[in-house]
Protein backbone atom coordinates (compact mmCIF):
# COMPACT_ATOMS: atom_id res chain seq x y z
CA UNK A 1 0.00 0.00 0.00
CA UNK A 2 1.08 3.55 -0.71
CA UNK A 3 -1.55 5.46 1.16
CA UNK A 4 -0.55 8.92 -0.05
CA UNK A 5 -0.95 7.77 -3.66
CA UNK A 6 -4.23 5.93 -3.04
CA UNK A 7 -2.52 2.70 -4.05
CA UNK A 8 -4.37 0.48 -1.64
CA UNK A 9 -3.94 -2.91 -3.30
CA UNK A 10 -0.65 -4.79 -3.37
CA UNK A 11 -1.55 -7.78 -5.51
CA UNK A 12 -4.44 -9.72 -7.02
CA UNK A 13 -4.36 -13.29 -5.73
CA UNK A 14 -7.54 -14.64 -7.30
CA UNK A 15 -9.88 -13.63 -10.11
CA UNK A 16 -12.91 -15.66 -11.18
CA UNK A 17 -14.67 -13.79 -13.96
CA UNK A 18 -17.43 -16.36 -14.49
CA UNK A 19 -18.14 -16.53 -10.78
CA UNK A 20 -17.81 -12.77 -10.43
CA UNK A 21 -15.29 -12.90 -7.57
CA UNK A 22 -11.89 -11.45 -6.78
CA UNK A 23 -9.41 -11.73 -3.92
CA UNK A 24 -6.56 -9.30 -3.32
CA UNK A 25 -3.97 -8.66 -0.63
CA UNK A 26 -2.53 -5.51 0.86
CA UNK A 27 -0.28 -4.70 3.77
CA UNK A 28 -0.78 -1.51 5.72
CA UNK A 29 2.55 0.37 5.79
CA UNK A 30 4.29 0.75 9.11
CA UNK A 31 4.98 4.41 8.45
CA UNK A 32 2.97 7.09 6.67
CA UNK A 33 2.38 10.80 7.13
CA UNK A 34 -1.29 9.90 7.47
CA UNK A 35 -0.55 8.21 10.79
CA UNK A 36 0.95 11.45 12.11
CA UNK A 37 -2.56 12.86 12.17
CA UNK A 38 -4.64 9.69 12.45
CA UNK A 39 -3.87 9.63 15.32
CA UNK A 40 -0.85 11.16 17.09
CA UNK A 41 0.70 8.37 19.16
CA UNK A 42 -2.11 5.97 18.22
CA UNK A 43 -1.82 5.19 14.49
CA UNK A 44 -4.91 3.68 12.88
CA UNK A 45 -5.71 2.93 9.25
CA UNK A 46 -8.46 5.45 8.40
CA UNK A 47 -11.84 3.85 7.84
CA UNK A 48 -12.38 5.84 4.66
CA UNK A 49 -9.23 4.27 3.21
CA UNK A 50 -10.49 0.80 4.14
CA UNK A 51 -13.68 1.65 2.25
CA UNK A 52 -11.63 2.91 -0.68
CA UNK A 53 -9.64 -0.33 -0.61
CA UNK A 54 -12.89 -2.30 -0.86
CA UNK A 55 -13.95 -0.06 -3.76
CA UNK A 56 -10.62 -0.63 -5.54
CA UNK A 57 -10.97 -4.39 -5.05
CA UNK A 58 -14.45 -4.29 -6.55
CA UNK A 59 -13.23 -2.00 -9.29
CA UNK A 60 -10.64 -4.49 -10.50
CA UNK A 61 -13.32 -7.16 -10.59
CA UNK A 62 -15.51 -4.92 -12.76
CA UNK A 63 -12.58 -4.05 -15.03
CA UNK A 64 -11.95 -7.76 -15.45
CA UNK A 65 -15.57 -8.64 -16.17
CA UNK A 66 -15.85 -5.82 -18.70
CA UNK A 67 -12.62 -7.00 -20.37
CA UNK A 68 -10.73 -3.79 -19.62
CA UNK A 69 -13.15 -1.76 -21.75
CA UNK A 70 -14.82 0.18 -18.94
CA UNK A 71 -13.85 2.15 -15.88
CA UNK A 72 -15.89 1.90 -12.70
CA UNK A 73 -16.35 5.08 -10.69
CA UNK A 74 -17.48 4.89 -7.08
CA UNK A 75 -21.06 6.07 -6.58
CA UNK A 76 -22.33 4.77 -3.24
CA UNK A 77 -21.64 2.64 -0.19
CA UNK A 78 -24.54 0.88 1.50
CA UNK A 79 -24.51 -0.71 4.91
CA UNK A 80 -20.80 0.00 5.31
CA UNK A 81 -19.51 -1.37 8.60
CA UNK A 82 -16.10 -0.70 10.15
CA UNK A 83 -15.99 -3.46 12.72
CA UNK A 84 -12.62 -3.11 14.36
CA UNK A 85 -9.38 -1.13 14.20
CA UNK A 86 -6.75 -1.79 11.57
CA UNK A 87 -3.20 -0.85 12.51
CA UNK A 88 0.10 -0.31 10.67
CA UNK A 89 1.80 -3.49 9.50
CA UNK A 90 -1.31 -5.64 9.32
CA UNK A 91 -1.94 -7.67 6.16
CA UNK A 92 -5.42 -7.40 4.73
CA UNK A 93 -7.27 -10.05 2.73
CA UNK A 94 -9.79 -8.24 0.57
CA UNK A 95 -12.56 -9.89 -1.43
CA UNK A 96 -15.40 -8.71 -3.62
CA UNK A 97 -18.18 -10.34 -5.55
CA UNK A 98 -20.52 -9.04 -8.22
CA UNK A 99 -24.08 -8.64 -7.03
CA UNK A 100 -25.48 -7.21 -10.26
CA UNK A 101 -23.93 -6.05 -13.51
CA UNK A 102 -26.34 -3.53 -14.94
CA UNK A 103 -26.15 -1.34 -18.01
CA UNK A 104 -23.78 1.46 -17.08
CA UNK A 105 -23.66 0.51 -13.43
CA UNK A 106 -22.67 -2.35 -11.15
CA UNK A 107 -23.32 -3.42 -7.57
CA UNK A 108 -20.81 -5.43 -5.53
CA UNK A 109 -20.34 -6.77 -2.03
CA UNK A 110 -16.87 -6.39 -0.55
CA UNK A 111 -15.13 -7.25 2.68
CA UNK A 112 -11.75 -7.08 4.39
CA UNK A 113 -10.40 -9.68 6.77
CA UNK A 114 -7.33 -9.70 8.99
CA UNK A 115 -6.13 -13.15 10.04
CA UNK A 116 -9.54 -14.52 9.07
CA UNK A 117 -11.52 -12.02 11.09
CA UNK A 118 -13.96 -9.70 9.35
CA UNK A 119 -12.91 -6.08 9.91
CA UNK A 120 -15.18 -4.26 7.46
CA UNK A 121 -17.72 -4.89 4.73
CA UNK A 122 -20.11 -3.00 2.48
CA UNK A 123 -22.29 -3.08 -0.57
CA UNK A 124 -20.90 -0.74 -3.21
CA UNK A 125 -22.45 0.90 -6.27
CA UNK A 126 -20.42 2.04 -9.27
CA UNK A 127 -21.14 3.95 -12.41
CA UNK A 128 -19.39 2.03 -15.19
CA UNK A 129 -18.39 4.03 -18.26
CA UNK A 130 -15.98 3.74 -21.17
CA UNK A 131 -12.44 4.83 -20.29
CA UNK A 132 -12.36 8.64 -20.57
CA UNK A 133 -9.23 8.51 -22.74
CA UNK A 134 -6.62 6.07 -24.10
CA UNK A 135 -4.12 7.64 -21.69
CA UNK A 136 -6.39 6.88 -18.74
CA UNK A 137 -6.69 3.26 -19.82
CA UNK A 138 -2.92 3.03 -20.33
CA UNK A 139 -2.33 4.31 -16.80
CA UNK A 140 -4.70 1.68 -15.44
CA UNK A 141 -2.88 -1.01 -17.42
CA UNK A 142 0.33 0.05 -15.69
CA UNK A 143 -1.33 -0.28 -12.31
CA UNK A 144 -2.72 -3.66 -13.38
CA UNK A 145 0.78 -4.90 -14.15
CA UNK A 146 2.08 -3.59 -10.83
CA UNK A 147 -0.55 -5.51 -8.83
CA UNK A 148 -0.27 -8.76 -10.80
CA UNK A 149 -3.71 -8.37 -12.34
CA UNK A 150 -4.04 -11.51 -14.49
CA UNK A 151 -4.54 -10.04 -17.95
CA UNK A 152 -4.44 -13.55 -19.44
CA UNK A 153 -7.64 -14.33 -17.56
CA UNK A 154 -9.48 -11.77 -19.67
CA UNK A 155 -8.76 -13.60 -22.89
CA UNK A 156 -9.84 -16.88 -21.33
CA UNK A 157 -13.11 -15.44 -20.00
Amino acid sequence: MRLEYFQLIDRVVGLDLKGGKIQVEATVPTTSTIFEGHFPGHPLMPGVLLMEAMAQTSGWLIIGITQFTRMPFLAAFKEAKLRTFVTPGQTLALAAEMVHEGSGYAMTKAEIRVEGNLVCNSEITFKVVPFPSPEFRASMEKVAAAIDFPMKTLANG
Partner: protein
Amino acid sequence: MSSTFDTVVNIIAETCDIPRETIKPESHAINDLGIDSLDFLDVAFAIDKTFGIKMPIEQWTQEVNEGRATTEQYFVLENLCARIDELVAAKKA
Protein backbone atom coordinates in the same frame (compact mmCIF):
# COMPACT_ATOMS: atom_id res chain seq x y z
CA MET B 1 -53.05 0.04 -14.49
CA SER B 2 -50.80 -2.87 -15.34
CA SER B 3 -49.06 -4.92 -12.69
CA THR B 4 -45.78 -3.68 -14.15
CA PHE B 5 -46.78 -0.12 -13.30
CA ASP B 6 -47.81 -1.10 -9.78
CA THR B 7 -44.50 -2.86 -9.25
CA VAL B 8 -42.50 0.10 -10.57
CA VAL B 9 -44.47 2.48 -8.36
CA ASN B 10 -43.63 0.36 -5.34
CA ILE B 11 -39.96 0.30 -6.29
CA ILE B 12 -39.79 4.07 -6.78
CA ALA B 13 -41.76 4.82 -3.64
CA GLU B 14 -39.57 2.60 -1.48
CA THR B 15 -36.24 3.40 -3.13
CA CYS B 16 -36.67 7.16 -3.44
CA ASP B 17 -39.03 7.82 -0.53
CA ILE B 18 -41.66 9.34 -2.83
CA PRO B 19 -45.36 9.13 -1.81
CA ARG B 20 -47.17 6.56 -3.98
CA GLU B 21 -50.08 8.89 -4.71
CA THR B 22 -47.77 11.35 -6.47
CA ILE B 23 -46.48 8.73 -8.91
CA LYS B 24 -48.65 8.66 -12.05
CA PRO B 25 -48.35 6.87 -15.40
CA GLU B 26 -47.63 10.23 -17.02
CA SER B 27 -44.97 11.16 -14.45
CA HIS B 28 -41.48 11.77 -15.80
CA ALA B 29 -39.05 10.03 -13.47
CA ILE B 30 -36.53 12.85 -13.62
CA ASN B 31 -38.50 15.99 -14.39
CA ASP B 32 -41.63 15.29 -12.33
CA LEU B 33 -40.46 12.92 -9.59
CA GLY B 34 -37.00 14.44 -9.19
CA ILE B 35 -35.18 11.13 -9.25
CA ASP B 36 -31.49 11.92 -9.72
CA SER B 37 -28.97 9.73 -11.52
CA LEU B 38 -27.73 8.02 -8.37
CA ASP B 39 -31.20 7.19 -7.11
CA PHE B 40 -32.10 5.99 -10.58
CA LEU B 41 -29.32 3.39 -10.31
CA ASP B 42 -31.10 1.95 -7.27
CA VAL B 43 -34.39 2.02 -9.17
CA ALA B 44 -32.76 0.33 -12.17
CA PHE B 45 -31.18 -2.30 -9.92
CA ALA B 46 -34.53 -3.10 -8.32
CA ILE B 47 -36.28 -3.25 -11.70
CA ASP B 48 -33.56 -5.47 -13.20
CA LYS B 49 -33.73 -7.83 -10.24
CA THR B 50 -37.51 -7.89 -9.93
CA PHE B 51 -38.20 -8.50 -13.62
CA GLY B 52 -35.07 -10.54 -14.38
CA ILE B 53 -33.96 -8.18 -17.11
CA LYS B 54 -31.11 -5.78 -17.85
CA MET B 55 -32.51 -2.41 -18.84
CA PRO B 56 -30.25 -1.02 -21.61
CA ILE B 57 -29.76 2.31 -19.89
CA GLU B 58 -26.51 3.06 -21.70
CA GLN B 59 -28.21 2.56 -25.06
CA TRP B 60 -31.17 4.71 -24.06
CA THR B 61 -28.87 7.47 -22.81
CA GLN B 62 -26.88 7.37 -26.03
CA GLU B 63 -30.04 7.61 -28.13
CA VAL B 64 -31.18 10.64 -26.14
CA ASN B 65 -27.77 12.31 -26.32
CA GLU B 66 -27.64 11.79 -30.08
CA GLY B 67 -31.16 13.17 -30.56
CA ARG B 68 -32.57 9.86 -31.80
CA ALA B 69 -34.95 9.61 -28.84
CA THR B 70 -36.44 11.82 -26.16
CA THR B 71 -36.18 11.28 -22.43
CA GLU B 72 -39.98 10.97 -22.42
CA GLN B 73 -39.75 7.75 -24.42
CA TYR B 74 -37.84 6.05 -21.64
CA PHE B 75 -38.46 7.97 -18.44
CA VAL B 76 -42.19 8.72 -18.49
CA LEU B 77 -43.41 5.85 -16.36
CA GLU B 78 -46.04 4.44 -18.71
CA ASN B 79 -43.38 4.35 -21.43
CA LEU B 80 -40.78 2.90 -19.07
CA CYS B 81 -43.25 0.15 -18.11
CA ALA B 82 -43.87 -0.58 -21.80
CA ARG B 83 -40.10 -0.94 -22.32
CA ILE B 84 -39.93 -3.27 -19.31
CA ASP B 85 -42.76 -5.40 -20.70
CA GLU B 86 -40.94 -5.58 -24.04
CA LEU B 87 -37.72 -6.70 -22.34
CA VAL B 88 -39.56 -9.31 -20.30
CA ALA B 89 -41.31 -10.62 -23.42
CA ALA B 90 -38.03 -10.71 -25.36
CA LYS B 91 -36.43 -12.70 -22.58
CA LYS B 92 -39.25 -15.26 -22.62
CA ALA B 93 -39.21 -15.57 -26.42
